[in-house]
């Protein structure tokens, strides 16, 4: 393939305004929960009052007697064909687990009826903590042995790194084991060894729009699914499978998503579809905030022990790490990713990383923006900071001396491709805050840095485009735009075709009409779908040039597209407009094929993304309150298709990182009851808690992404907890190892440090 001539980019790289703006600002945008269909019923869930219980019976008669209640569905009422029933019947395995669905003419009526469903349940001992789960003779998550999947998982699902297949203890569902070199020798060679254990709590994605789905049986025999999801084809397949339908019988309408962050990958669509089919009426389920906290798919709690050794000339000799994730009721934790990242940012000549996943009587875990990476970064970056300190090294120099570069081996085998970690560290090193950190310390503040990496996501994608009669391009996609990525797609298409971004219309079809695409998640949409968009537009360009060449009696190689016209290079007088080409291709006697560009991407090499953040903080020693004064985020983005949108992602990632670091945690009591089931008890950062964020874009182009772009969504959400706890360490001398660092945790850490002095 001939390399494209380097040329100046016109659309790509521009700070263009979002193409979906006005509707979202005037209240005109229709989200799933805003839809109403004739005959539609409102669903409300009856959840398990206990974390673990034997269900002896459910009496729905009083609920059914409420005027306006159409049905109260139990597990046996759902026309399920394959897979696990979304409603529990004989055993409830987490607090809030759906046991029944009430369907009524209004939400208020459905709520009335929920209060009248009588559950005869007998509480059982739940598994609620790592300690309980591993206790010899301790409780099990389920009494029934019917769950073959899980037993199967215990037997076979050990990660690739496992030394040998083994039967795991009860409640343990997954292990990892990565080794390199000679760990004992590595520590023997070390001049200093540091060891610490970090713990983090279960965290919720906190999307503002709750999980919401509307399913309508269509009179034509299909099922229409309107839903807030990050992957409409995932939903299509899951619904079809569950109901025993052909995929083509399920049409998923991709609705605008009011925040997903990894949490919206087909949680409730099958359940709502089953209910809709059971009563043959449209059913809308929008979870209440409490239901969402209780029964959606949060990120699991974890504990990571790290031991790190290094020499006085500043080299790391050995890493030993042990990770434990407390997943929900089924194997679902990001153990593997976390293990790879703990051992991935630096060169570790000797390494032993072990880990286990434990299941508990909590809802099944889900992905939350860079799953596993936040905790992995906290662990390794805290240890690196402490080791640098112990060795008397500058933490930045120490990182630069040891950081991974292209060709360095990753824990799970394979070498890093070209990555921008080093360049990103250097960008932070040059920043005034880092240069002036001594003076900042004099003020009683502290400065911390931290690395956040993400291996990058991959999933094939396709795109199709056509030249419309008005000479504009319509690009058809099957991927979900969460936060403005379609504006970037328009820029890529415009760039590849040679037209203005305003002349590109992005059209996301339904699962029946759209070209297939992977889900939006893992920082892969611009990287993979963007590549397909670029190819589709290039394909269209080729067809357009061929038509023009024929009309202008010139060689296609001598043509260019400018100002909406195809012209002979340097001879604007010899030209034909795109509109004329479109009209020609659509007229009976034009004799040329209509323009239909096709693009596909099946990239097999991910583009890992690295962020390095820096924070200046102070801690109120009386109250334990941490204040972030300044925050700097540097990130290797490959190439910023739209710097404004990239910065938005970084703002969001930093905000969520601050949430991890200082505020967010889901607390359960010993009985497995969720205590923090509201946005009052669960603290999502508010405007006052997010400082000004200075952004430095580092651009080390990727090999395969469109115009060198890399995935940019996850990396900025990764380093927050590491950065802030490192800054707290710098400000106070105290190493906090638990996140979130609520004031009381900080105060306790300060106290115990004072007591130790």
């Amino acid at each position: 393939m001939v390399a494209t001539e380097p040329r100046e980019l016109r659309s790509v790289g521009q700070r263009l305004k979002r193409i979906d703006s006005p509707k979202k600002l005037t209240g005109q945008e229709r989200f799933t929960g805003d839809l109403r269909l004739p005959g539609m019923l409102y669903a409300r869930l009856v959840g398990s009052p206990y974390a673990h219980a034997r269900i002896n019976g459910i009496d729905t008669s009083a609920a059914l007697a409420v005027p306006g209640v159409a049905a109260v569905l139990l597990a046996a009422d759902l026309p399920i064909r394959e897979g696990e029933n979304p409603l529990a019947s004989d055993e409830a395995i987490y607090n809030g687990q759906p046991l029944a669905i009430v369907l009524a003419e209004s939400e208020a009526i459905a709520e009335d009826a929920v209060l009248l469903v009588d559950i005869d349940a007998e509480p059982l001992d739940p598994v609620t903590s790592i300690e309980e789960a591993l206790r010899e003779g301790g409780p099990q998550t389920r009494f029934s042995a019917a769950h073959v999947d899980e037993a199967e998982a215990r037997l076979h699902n050990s990660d690739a790194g496992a030394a040998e297949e083994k039967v795991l203890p009860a409640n343990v569902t997954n292990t990892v084991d990565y080794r390199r070199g000679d760990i004992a020798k590595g520590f023997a060679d070390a001049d200093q060894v540091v060891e610490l254990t970090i713990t983090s709590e279960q965290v919720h994605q906190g999307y503002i729009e709750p999980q919401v789905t509307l399913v309508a049986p269509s009179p034509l025999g299909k099922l229409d699914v309107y839903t807030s999801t990050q992957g409409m084809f995932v939903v299509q397949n899951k619904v079809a499978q569950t109901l025993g339908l052909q995929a083509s019988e399920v049409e998923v309408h991709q609705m605008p998503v009011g925040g997903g962050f990894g949490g919206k990958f087909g949680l409730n669509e099958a359940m709502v579809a089953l209910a809709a089919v059971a009563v043959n009426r449209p059913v809308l389920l929008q979870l209440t905030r409490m239901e969402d906290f209780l029964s959606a798919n949060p990120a699991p709690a974890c504990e990571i022990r790290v031991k790190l050794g290094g020499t006085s000339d500043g080299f790391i000799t050995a890493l030993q790490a042990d990770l434990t994730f407390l997943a929900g009721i089924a194997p679902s934790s990001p153990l593997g990713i976390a293990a790879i990242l703990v051992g991935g940012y630096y060169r570790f000549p000797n390494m032993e990383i072990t880990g286990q996943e434990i299941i508990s009587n909590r809802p099944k875990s889900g992905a939350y923006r860079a799953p596993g990476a936040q905790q992995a970064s906290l662990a390794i970056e805290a240890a690196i900071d402490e080791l640098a300190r112990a060795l008397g090294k500058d933490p930045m120099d120490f990182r630069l001396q040891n950081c991974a570069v292209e060709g360095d081996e990753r824990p799970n085998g394979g070498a890093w491709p070209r990555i921008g970690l080093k360049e990103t560290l250097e960008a932070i090193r040059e920043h005034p805050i880092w240069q002036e950190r001594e003076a900042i310390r004099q003020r009683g503040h502290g400065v911390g840095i931290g690395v956040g990496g993400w291996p990058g996501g991959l999933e094939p994608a396709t795109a199709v485009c056509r030249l419309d009669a008005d000479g504009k391009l319509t690009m058809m996609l099957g991927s979900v735009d969460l936060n403005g990525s379609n504006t970037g797609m328009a820029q890529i298409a415009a760039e590849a075709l040679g037209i203005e971004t305003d002349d590109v219309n992005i059209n996301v079809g339904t699962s029946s009409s759209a070209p297939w695409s992977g889900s939006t998640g893992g920082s892969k949409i611009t990287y993979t779908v963007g590549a397909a968009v670029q190819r589709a537009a290039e394909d269209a360009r080729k067809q357009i040039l061929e038509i023009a060449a024929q009309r202008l009696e010139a060689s296609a190689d001598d043509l260019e597209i400018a100002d909406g016209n195809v012209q002979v290079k340097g001879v604007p007088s010899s030209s034909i407009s795109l509109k004329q080409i479109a009209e020609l291709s659509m007229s009976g006697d034009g004799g040329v094929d209509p323009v239909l560009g096709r693009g596909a991407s099946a990239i097999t090499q991910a583009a890992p993304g690295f962020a390095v953040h820096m924070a200046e903080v102070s801690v109120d020693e009386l109250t334990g309150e941490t204040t972030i004064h300044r925050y700097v985020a540097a990130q290797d983005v490959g190439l910023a298709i739209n710097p404004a949108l990239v910065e938005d992602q970084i703002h969001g990632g930093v905000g969520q990182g601050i949430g991890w670091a200082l505020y967010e945690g889901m607390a359960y009591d010993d009985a497995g009851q969720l205590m923090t089931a509201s946005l009052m008890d669960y603290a999502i950062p508010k405007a006052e808690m997010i400082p000004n964020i200075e952004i430095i874009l580092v651009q080390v182009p990727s090999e395969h992404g469109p115009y060198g772009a890399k995935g940019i969504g996850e990396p900025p959400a990764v380093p927050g907890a590491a950065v802030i706890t490192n800054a707290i360490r710098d400000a106070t001398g105290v190493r906090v190892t638990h996140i979130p660092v609520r004031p009381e945790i900080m105060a306790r850490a300060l106290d115990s440090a004072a007591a130790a002095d």
Partner: protein
Amino acid sequence: MAPQRMPVTVTVNGSDHHLLVEPRHTLLDTLREDLRLTGTKKVCDMGNCGACTVHVDGLAVYSCLTLAVETDGHEVRTIEGVAPPDGLDPVQEAFIRMDAFQCGFCTPGQIMSLRALLDGNDDPTDDDIQTAVSGNLCRCGAYRNILRAGRLAADLQRARRESEVAR
């Protein structure tokens, strides 16, 4: 108990509505279900997020903690009633220029909070703006741009007013 319904006359975005509502229906549900004004969002329904912010008699309130019957005889303004017929409100304009929204779900509430501020204060301080949106959650992380948009909106509003005076 059979739900009792009560007559309510309320002005919403300048139009009078005569409704029959159950006392337990919140203003939020009434706007969304009875008037089909769905720009006001239902998120927490407990006064913890700000997505349902509307104005009652010019004050920003949570419509999820306001009963529809309480608004009898009052004036309600929602996100649908903010833009002038031929364009956008300065706050909306500023949101575009400052890129102050991402997924767009909290956005109507944020705009209503800033609009309430600017209705009473043409020249707010940075603190005023931060306080005005302190009762509105955003998870995508648009906060800093929302604050910038608040400043710009005040400038745009003053400029509009001055040009009106000039004419």
